[in-house]
C-alpha cells in the first residue's frame, strides 16, 4: 500500500471508481435522451457533456431552457448547482495545491462528485502519499468515468428520438434528482436546507423568469449553514 509508485496508485484509483459506472452510464444516457427530446442536436449534447462535464447542472440547464427561462437565469441557476465544486476545490487544495499548474487545471476539469469523494477519503487516510501519487490516484478515478459519461450521452442522444411518449420520460429528471438528493440528507442541517428550498421554490413560483428558484436556493443555503452552527453549539459541553 505504501509503494512510492504513482502507476500503482493510478490503477488503484481505476479500481475504486469501477462501481460508479453503474450510476454514470444510465445518467449520461438519460441526459442524451432528455436533451434531444428538448430539441438539442447531437453536437450540442456532446458539447454539453464534454465541455461542462457536470450532470446535474446539464439537466438543470436543459430543463430551464425548455421552460423558456431567460438565458442569464439558465446560466446562473446551473452554475449555482455546480457551486458545491468550489467546496471540493477548496478541500483538495491542501493535497494537490503544490502540483504544477497544468496538473491542477486537469484536476479542475475532471472534478466530478465521485472522483472528489474517492480522492478526499484516500488522501485523508494515507497522509504519506506524495503529490504525484495523489495526482495519479485522482486521474485513475476519472479514467473509467469521464469516457463513459461522454459515450453514454452520445448513445442516449442518438437513441433519444426513438423513445415513445408512453415511457413518461418527462419524469426521468425529477426521479434522478430525488435519488441524488435523498442520500445527501445526512444531517438535520441538510434536511432543513432541502425543506426550505422546496417551500420557497413553491411559494415563489410566481416570480418572473424562474428567479424564484435562485432566491429559494440562497435562502436554503443560509438556513443549512445556520442550523449547522446551531447544532454544533449545542454539541459543545
Amino acid at each position, binding site marked *: 500500500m505504501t509503494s512510492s509508485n504513482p502507476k500503482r496508485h493510478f490503477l488503484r484509483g481505476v479500481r475504486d471508481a469501477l462501481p460508479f459506472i453503474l450510476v454514470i452510464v444510465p445518467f449520461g444516457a438519460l441526459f442524451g435522451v432528455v436533451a434531444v427530446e428538448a430539441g438539442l442536436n447531437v453536437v450540442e449534447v456532446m458539447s454539453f457533456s464534454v*465541455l461542462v462535464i457536470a450532470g446535474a447542472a446539464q439537466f438543470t440547464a436543459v430543463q430551464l431552457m425548455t421552460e423558456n427561462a431567460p438565458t442569464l437565469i439558465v446560466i446562473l441557476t*446551473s452554475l449555482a448547482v455546480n457551486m*458545491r465544486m468550489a467546496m471540493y*476545490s477548496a478541500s483538495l487544495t491542501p493535497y494537490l495545491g503544490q502540483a504544477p499548474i497544468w496538473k491542477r487545471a486537469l484536476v479542475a476539469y475532471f472534478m466530478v462528485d465521485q472522483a472528489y469523494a474517492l480522492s478526499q477519503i484516500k488522501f485523508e487516510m494515507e497522509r504519506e502519499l506524495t503529490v504525484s501519487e495523489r495526482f495519479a490516484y485522482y486521474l485513475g478515478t476519472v479514467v473509467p468515468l469521464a469516457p463513459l459519461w461522454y459515450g453514454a450521452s452520445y448513445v442516449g442522444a442518438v437513441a433519444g428520438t426513438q423513445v415513445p411518449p408512453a415511457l413518461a420520460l418527462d419524469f426521468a429528471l425529477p426521479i434522478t434528482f430525488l435519488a441524488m438528493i435523498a442520500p445527501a440528507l445526512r444531517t438535520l*442541517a441538510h434536511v432543513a436546507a432541502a425543506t426550505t428550498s422546496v417551500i420557497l421554490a413553491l411559494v415563489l413560483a410566481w416570480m418572473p423568469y424562474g428567479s424564484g428558484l435562485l432566491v429559494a436556493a440562497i435562502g*436554503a443555503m443560509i438556513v443549512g449553514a445556520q442550523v449547522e452552527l446551531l447544532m454544533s453549539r449545542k454539541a459543545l459541553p
Partner: protein
Amino acid sequence: MMIDHTTVWIVIIALAIGSFLIRFSFLGIVGERPMPEWLLRHLRYTPVAVLPGLVAPLVLWPAATGGMTDPARLGAALMTLSVGYFSRNVLAAILSGAATLYGLLYLLG
C-alpha cells in the same frame, strides 16, 4: 420543441467556462491559503439547496398532465425519496422510482 440554438450555445459556453472556474478556483488561485469557515459552511449546502427547489414544482405540477397533480408521478417521487434516504443507494432509488411510476401509470391509466 422550440429551443433556440444560439441560446443553447451561449449556455454551453458560459457553463463550460463558469464550471471550470468554479472547479479551478481554490486549487488554482488560492493555493495553500486557508478558506474562511463561513464560506465553506454555505457551499456545503448548495446541492440540497438548489435541486429540491427545482424538482418540487415538477413533482406537484407536472407539465405532462397540464399542471394537474398526478398520483402516479407523486407516488414515484415519494418512493424514490424514501428508497434513496434509507438505502443511500442512488441506483436503487432511481430503479424503484421508475418501477413505481410505470406500475401506477399502468394501474391508474
